[in-house]
């Protein structure tokens, strides 16, 4: 799987209240949530973001609340993938569970700039910066998480397990 797009750059500790403020959590409709994605980090983000864009951030992306609405809002807004130096653990689980590709890379997090066009080879874990002509490596995705991805997310994985037993 190749994910190519333009980058929106964010700093460290982007919390889930910034990704989707709790004041909008009286619904779990992805389309409604997408209208407010990243609003408290950048109030114009929902109108600027385009389908196919990517987010690159520093450490601890998605810290705070367990709300799955955060990766859901990003996905529904058209964000193809998130690259960060590290992810908060519940966000990490949630992203895999709902099928939002995420990648951990120190190099990519530091060297990619706002507006760069990057291309991620999701299977090989290679991130190419087309704008700058650089290549970075993402940390390998653990085998179990790959199993979840190939199953099509946790629900499909569980459904198959129940059927098989």
């Amino acid at each position, binding site marked *: 799987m190749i994910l190519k797009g333009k980058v929106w750059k964010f700093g460290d500790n982007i919390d889930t209240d910034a990704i989707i403020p709790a004041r909008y959590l*009286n619904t779990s409709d992805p389309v409604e949530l997408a209208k407010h994605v990243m609003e408290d980090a950048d109030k114009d983000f929902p109108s600027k973001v385009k389908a196919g864009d990517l987010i690159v951030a520093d450490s601890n992306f998605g810290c705070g609340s367990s709300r799955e609405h955060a990766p859901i809002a990003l996905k529904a807004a058209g964000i193809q993938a998130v690259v960060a130096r590290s992810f908060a653990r519940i966000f990490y689980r949630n992203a895999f*569970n*709902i099928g939002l590709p995420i990648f951990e890379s120190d190099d990519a997090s530091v060297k990619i700039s706002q507006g760069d066009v990057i291309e991620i080879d999701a299977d090989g874990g290679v991130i190419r910066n087309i704008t700058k002509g650089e290549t970075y490596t993402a940390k390998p995705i653990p085998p179990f998480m790959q199993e979840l991805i190939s199953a099509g997310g*946790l629900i499909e994985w569980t459904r198959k397990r*129940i059927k098989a037993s």
Partner: protein
Amino acid sequence: MTITEKILAAHSGRDKVSAGELINAKVDLILANDITAPISITEFKKIGAGNVFDKERVAFIPDHFAPQKDIKAAEQCKMLREFSREYDLSLYFEVGRMGVEHALLPEQGLVGPGDLVIGADSHTCTYGALGAFSTGVGSTDVASAMATGECWFKVPESMKFIYYGKLNRWVSGKDLILHTIGDIGVDGALYRAMEFEGEVIRLMSMSGRLTMCNMAIEAGGKNGIIVPDDITEGYVKGRAKRAYKFYASDKDAGYVEVKEYDCSKIPLTVSCPHLPSNTKPAAELSSVSIDQVVVGSCTNGRIEDIREAAEIIKGKKVSPNTRMIVIPATQQIYLQCVKEGLAEIFVNAEAVFSTPTCGPCLGGHMGILAKGEKAIATTNRNFVGRMGDPGSEVYLSNPAVAAASAVKGRIAIPEEVI
């Protein structure tokens, strides 16, 4: 093994587990609230499991936007109610019986020592205070576990935090955990178990322990945990609805890091906007004016917390430039406040005394901040926009500092008002 490893091993049918291993473990209790359960319900139905794995071990607690704050919130709460009826769940807590989930479940004896608990709420880590392994997960994790009774985990590395020395007056579990987060940062315990111990912890009430474990997530921790002892036994005895088991860490258990704190050097501590790790001594913040004070939440909404705030404010008035909102975390605590005369103290002080809800903690309802306003709260997060407008600010403190600040209309320490 550490206590965390032992509980995870026991629940995955293994003699031993080690940090970094991926395991599938049986859960003792699953919880979700009115924000997270709607997604769990939708996803659960996609699995086609027919029934939940155990109708007495799935707890649905409408507490965040309940009592229902608007039509959409009412629809979400209705989903929980209807699902609970359809699947005959015994642990559905209607408005009037509910409380803030992480205060309610320990109080009702529904979580206990040795349990493995998951919840679609990040503060599920609270129950580590009872010697349980408990952690926050997403709605989809909950949906899957509702069907199978199991959940996958990566066995976390453990970090040990030792607290010794004599606590200063009014310094509590809240100050210790804020100080610790200030020391290690909001990702200082990322993916790790935070095990709290030392002479100060051994003397600490269950209320203070629950506060400390509650905020493990604010350092990125997977769980907070305290090895159970006589105080734990005293708390769970007569309360526990299920059998429980005490686990302890082995003497040779492995820790990736050990931090020690001399509590005599820990002051009353406040987290300044916009991260819990942005801590300062409360005494250095007296120039910060305060528009709103909130006492409550899963962090500090227990009876001990409300008593502490009442002790400070008794016979005084909330500053004319400030509003104060006191929210006991459960109906039982609310009733206790009424019986002890605490409700009267707050109303006489011209504070709001509210029915249980998470409400303002996450900017839901019952005390939202306007642009430019500043609040001091006994809650757990102070991110941008957490309690209202993105241009508002939240300071985090213990209940005594919050109450003193209400009297002064600015951040204050108890000695200034008593």
